[in-house]
């Protein structure tokens, strides 16, 4: 139990440290490329539907993978026929055109002319948001791709307002005028559509509408949600809308719409940079999603953020958050855009570094040097004041020219937890058996043990652990004595070090384990008074082996080491002492395969040899033959058998009936079940009764006549 408790505790600690460490965001890296390649593996040359094709191609484009799908011709073909056919829906058109934008297939202008008119019509009498989105989007794409087709919308204002009419007071949008539910996702689409309208507008859209739209966007941003690590995201309020979008797709759609809108409108909509940065952090924090759709959303929206007109987020990241004092690691900091491209010239300054949880500051205001080829800022040597432990480093990004302040969002100061690890020195360790009066200490143990630990540490630092031959300590004690173990831990700077765990474990031969926490008051010491412990030790005498566990996340030489043996002799267990609990041979064995169950079958009854049975079968026939022979010798006579016809028939029927009944019995034995047999027997029985009565009465009368005569 204690061990499990410890395990659980360890897990907790580990998880804690991990998620602390991971709240440093890394920009898009090469791992994304490989992930993209395997997520968007084209099946038989094509990516399935046009939408998926577009997502794949777009992702590749952003990530700079110049790997056009080898089946691009087939894709182009499908694009052309989609564009060519007048029956294709705006949605297909949209994706076809998007694919086309990337693939640059050769679509002749006539098709464009055909569909432009259709799309315009669709735009003009579109009612639902999605119609607007698709048709407008396609128009925009056509505008990009074809030169001459005239695409300018005549009443852009009308369309603008009809889209705007779907907006809600809180900045969210409805899908269509006739369903009340409003969604953030729709807001993203609407923004994108509106951006398209603005770009297609033949005449300038009046600024008032734009202004209200901007305020809408601000309202939308009021509903933004926040994680505790500074990541912002949008989420649908109404769960269970027609198709519910997770935070990722919602946020990405909003980001797309937002950036698109920002790119077409003049003047900046004043969104706080840290929110943009928070959105970027959100997308980055996802890591590498396993789903193609999510992956596309992440990459696409990051790309949108990469070069938006609002503010470009800069990500400050650390390659390593664990610095080892022994290896003299140097602190490296990178500053990139979300897609990992370089930031404008700037300096990163380490504002403050302090042991987490404590106020005292160990470093202040250091400028990090910039290193060209690794494009990283570094601090070559940590100052002497930095001891092992968990630190909180606070960085600040300072741009060289102040113009960038507006363009880029750095989110002010960034706090990064950093582990500074080092080798902990263990000294004046001693283990001793004390008599009840704290008198004689056997000191030779102490020496041996100390030397052993030192040597063991020495090897530990050489990353080569040799466990054999080291449990030199072998003690023996009785229940009147005490065991004392004490040692000291000091950090490289000589302070007393308090590890997370310092345990002493006694294990009996019968796998019964006891764990004692080594208390520390300046120097670690534990005194086991066996007199008090006999109850807890279940009166188990015999040799226990001693294990010492000292561990911490910043202690490079954490160890769990068998120190040696102690031979306890404890008093006999009294009557009602607690039994030692049954220890599983191995705590994980209960998940292992169980012992195989061997079934016990009943031994088959021995059957006699066949010929014996057959002979007896023959024997059973013998008496019958004897019976027949005897009948002949007695001269059996059927003169009583009635001569006149009617009784004769009755007699015949009588015997027939009996024979039938016996036959029925045989059938019953062979296959029939009881109830069918009984039914049949009932019929036969009545028949037999009747016939038998007739014949027998006839016989009786005959005999009576004979008697009287």
């Amino acid at each position, binding site marked *: *139990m204690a061990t*499990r*408790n410890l395990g*659980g505790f360890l897990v*907790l600690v580990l998880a804690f440290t*991990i*998620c602390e460490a*991971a*709240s440093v965001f890394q920009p898009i890296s090469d791992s994304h490329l490989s992930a993209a390649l395997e997520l968007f593996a084209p099946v038989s040359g094509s990516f399935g539907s046009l939408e998926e094709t577009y997502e794949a191609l777009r992702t590749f484009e952003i990530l700079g993978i110049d790997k056009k799908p080898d089946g691009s011709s087939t894709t182009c073909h499908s694009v052309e026929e989609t564009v060519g056919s007048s029956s294709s829906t705006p949605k297909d058109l949209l994706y076809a055109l998007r694919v086309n934008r990337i693939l640059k297939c050769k679509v002749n202008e006539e098709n464009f002319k055909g569909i432009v008119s259709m799309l315009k019509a669709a735009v003009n009498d579109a009612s639902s948001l999605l119609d607007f989105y698709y048709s407008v989007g396609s128009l925009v794409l056509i505008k990009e791709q074809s030169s001459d087709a005239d695409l300018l919308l005549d009443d852009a204002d009308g369309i603008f307002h009809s889209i705007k009419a779907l907006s809600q007071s809180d900045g969210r949008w409805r899908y269509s005028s006739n369903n009340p539910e409003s969604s953030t996702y729709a807001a993203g689409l609407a923004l994108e559509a509106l951006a398209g309208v603005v770009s297609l507008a033949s005449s300038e859209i009046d600024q008032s509408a734009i202004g209200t739209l901007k305020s809408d966007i601000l309202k939308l941003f009021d509903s933004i*949600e*926040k*994680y*505790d*690590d500074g*990541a912002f995201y949008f989420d649908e309020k109404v769960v269970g809308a027609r198709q519910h979008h997770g935070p990722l797709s919602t946020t990405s759609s909003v980001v797309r719409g937002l950036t698109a809108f920002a790119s077409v409108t003049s003047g900046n909509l004043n969104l706080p940079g840290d929110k943009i940065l928070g959105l970027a952090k959100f997308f980055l*924090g*996802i*890591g590498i999603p396993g789903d193609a759709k999510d992956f596309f959303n992440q990459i696409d929206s990051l790309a949108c953020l990469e070069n938006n007109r609002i503010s470009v987020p800069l990500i400050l990241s650390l390659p390593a958050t664990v610095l080892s004092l022994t290896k003299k690691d140097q602190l490296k900091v990178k500053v990139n855009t979300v897609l990992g491209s370089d930031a404008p010239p700037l300096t990163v300054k380490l504002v403050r570094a302090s042991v987490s949880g404590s106020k005292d500051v160990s470093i202040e205001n250091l400028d990090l040097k910039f290193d060209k080829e690794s494009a990283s800022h570094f601090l070559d040597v940590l100052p002497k004041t930095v001891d092992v432990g968990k630190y909180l480093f606070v960085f600040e990004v300072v741009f060289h020219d102040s113009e960038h302040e507006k363009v880029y969002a750095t989110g002010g100061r960034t706090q990064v937890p950093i582990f500074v690890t080092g080798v902990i020195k263990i000294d004046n360790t001693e283990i001793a058996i004390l008599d009840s009066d704290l008198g004689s200490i056997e000191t030779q143990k102490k020496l041996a043990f100390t030397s052993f630990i030192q040597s063991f540490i020495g090897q530990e630092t050489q990353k080569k652990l040799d466990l054999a031959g080291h449990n030199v300590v072998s003690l023996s004690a009785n229940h009147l004595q005490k065991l004392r173990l004490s040692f000291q831990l000091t950090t490289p700077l000589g302070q007393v070090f308090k590890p997370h765990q310092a345990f002493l474990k006694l294990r009996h031969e019968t796998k019964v384990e006891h764990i004692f926490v080594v208390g520390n008051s300046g120097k670690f010491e534990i005194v086991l008074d066996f007199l008090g412990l006999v109850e807890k030790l279940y009166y188990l005498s015999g040799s226990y082996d001693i294990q010492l566990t000292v561990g911490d996340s910043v202690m490079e030489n954490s160890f769990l080491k068998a120190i040696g043996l102690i031979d306890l002799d404890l008093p006999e267990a009294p009557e009602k002492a607690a039994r030692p609990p049954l220890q599983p041979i191995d705590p994980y064995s209960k998940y292992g395969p169980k012992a195989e169950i061997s079934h016990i079958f009943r031994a088959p009854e021995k059957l006699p040899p066949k010929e014996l049975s057959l002979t007896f079968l023959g024997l059973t026939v013998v008496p019958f033959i004897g019976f027949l022979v005897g009948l002949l010798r007695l001269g059996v006579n059927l003169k009583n058998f009635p001569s006149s016809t009617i009784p004769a028939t009755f007699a015949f029927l009588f015997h027939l009936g009996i024979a039938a009944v016996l036959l029925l019995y045989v059938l019953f034995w062979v296959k029939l079940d009881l*109830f069918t047999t009984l039914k049949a027997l009932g019929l036969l029985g009545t028949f037999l009764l009747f016939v038998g009565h007739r014949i027998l009465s006839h016989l009786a009368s005959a005999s009576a006549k004979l008697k009287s005569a």
Partner: protein
Amino acid sequence: MAASETSNGTTLRHAFGNVFALFILLLIGVLAFSIRLFSVIKYESVIHEFDPYFNYRVTQFLTKKGIYDFWNWFDDRTWYPLGRVIGGTVFPGLTLTAGTIWWIVNSLNIPLSVETVCVFTAPIFSAFASWATYLLTKEVKGVGAGLTAAALLAMVPSYISRSVAGSYDNEAVAIFALIFTFYLYIKTLNTGSLFYATLNAIAYFYMVCSWGGYTFIINLIPMHVLLCIVTGRYSSRLYIAYAPLVVLGTLLAALVPVVGFNAVMTSEHFASFLVFIIIHVVALVYYIKGVLSPRMFKVAVTLVLSVGLVVCFAVIAVLVALVASSPTKGWSGRSLSLLDPTYASKYIPIIASVSEHQPPTWPSYFMDINVLAFLVPAGIIACFSPLSDASSFVILYIVTSVYFSGVMVRLMLVLAPAACIMSGIALSEAFEVFTRSIKFQLPGAPIDSQVDAGDKSSDNTTAQNDVAKTEKSEDTIKERPSRKNKKKEKEPVGQPSVKSRFEKRLLVLPLEASILAIFLLVLLGAFYVVHSVWAAAEAYSAPSIVLTSHSHDGLHVFDDFREAYAWLSHNTEVDDKVASWWDYGYQTTAMANRTVIVDNNTWNNTHIATVGTAMSSPEKAAWEIFNSLDVKYVLVVFGGLVGYPSDDINKFLWMVRIGGGVFPHIKEPDYLRDGQYRIDSQATPTMLNCLMYKLSYYRFVETDGKGFDRVRRTEIGKKYFKLNYFEEVFTTHHWMVRIYKLKPPKNRIRGKTKKSKSKTSSKTGKRSGTKKNPWH
């Protein structure tokens, strides 16, 4: 004399008498049926006690699933985790009977529920039983005795106690089967026709299907045969009556799954085989005797007898060997406790713990067979004059049944018919003597003699119902001729009627004496009727599942049992296991439809002992036992509040004994304070800490300030305590049934649960702006 002088008169009287007897029998049947309906009238049409509920459940299963599923029905709702093979371990007679009745009734489009059929099976069969008694007694001593005996049996209390409407138990049909088998045996013995022998075997088969008591038959009949042989009354009729019965009966008995090969393996049946062989030897001897001249026979006897004896010894040796090798090592526990009354209490606490397996007390004799107890000796004497095969059989029957009833209260039931027959014979004989003497006193008017004999005897046995009235006058009339015919056919030699006439003259008593005697008899009968009606109405009609109590402020009805079972069936999972003492196992499975650990069919002593141990160990140990048995709920019956005497605390010592029989760490002395069983402050700590005490008296003190137990008439010893491993989930209105739930095992790591809880709370705190980023 009568038969000769007015023959046509007698024939006319015969015809008249037969019709009349038929009518009377009909009325007797109605009486037998209706006197058992008190329970339905006073309470409602419910199944009574414990076992009937099991039978009811089995019947339901039969009517639902059909006969074949019933044969191989493995019941997993009981004896968890062992389960029980119902089809192979239950006596199917009752179930099949009720099932057939139900089927017939429904195929006649009379929609009766299975429960109704089950409730009324017992009264119907008691009517049949009284008719069977009539037939049997008629075979023995003529119509008059038959009618009297039938009337007596129709309302004998000890039989009523087992066959009131709703007590749907094996005995209900078994008694009918028993009497009918005996009747057929006697009938075969008198007529010596194979036809009746066959019927006899079939009736025996029905008896075997219905009740374990069939061993009584299969031992009694051989005893009788042996008696006849020893007393030199062997006749070939005896052979015809016995030999086919043994062969056919054994085969048929072996067909019943629960009996199976025991019919030839266990030594309850060996007596019959032994006698079977003996009767063959004897038959051979008689045959040779008949064939040979007496002189040659002298020679033959020596040879044949010696040979026969040798054969006998050989066979006995074989039988002994079989006994030694038979699986049950001879006699099964219940039969052994029959032979040796102290056997059960010594060796098998389970058998001893059932109250109806205790030896009866004298009051219970008087309670159950009332005045018959005094009439029986007279009946025996009457049977001795003259002694026929039939009467000797009846004598044997009464003697043995008296002995058995002395061993077990339950077997009072077997005694009752015998007693009825005997006293019926006695009464009719007495009436015959007295009326005849009266008639001889005033020879002028035989008619009005009969009349006054009639109305004198009119209001005897069943004073206020005319059944017995007419019946009495009737049998006094018909006594002589029937008796005389019997005489003729019984002694083929036939003594001259003159002789009988002379002895009749000798039998004359003075007029006043006889009138007085008749009057006294009438009083006796009246007393019997009053008593048995009282017994039927008051003593035996209570279905121990709904209780009533008369108190100063009127009638109280305690329906706690059904309340509790309903609670179980509505508030617990379908496959929850409920542990209780085995008395309530059947009811729980039948009414609550929940799986139980042990029930009233006590086939596995160890399992019961486990429950007993759990009940009598301290809370923690008990929790572990129950938990290991996968038990969810524990049900205890507690009468302390309303003074219901047969509750678990009173049964507790049996739990201790049964438990201690298997698990020696439970010692009875630990629960007794210097030899006496008490639950007050003097009680031993073991007693005060055992589970049964705690579950029974938990929060009991809250009812009245001081926790006064109305059954034990004392204040309980330990009043304020709390349960650590059980929690009270339900207690019925009068606290008669208390249901506890086992608490789930404690969570090992307190801190961890807290931590996770706090974390989840922080995670779910949506409004609190900082949420953990789930992507990390």
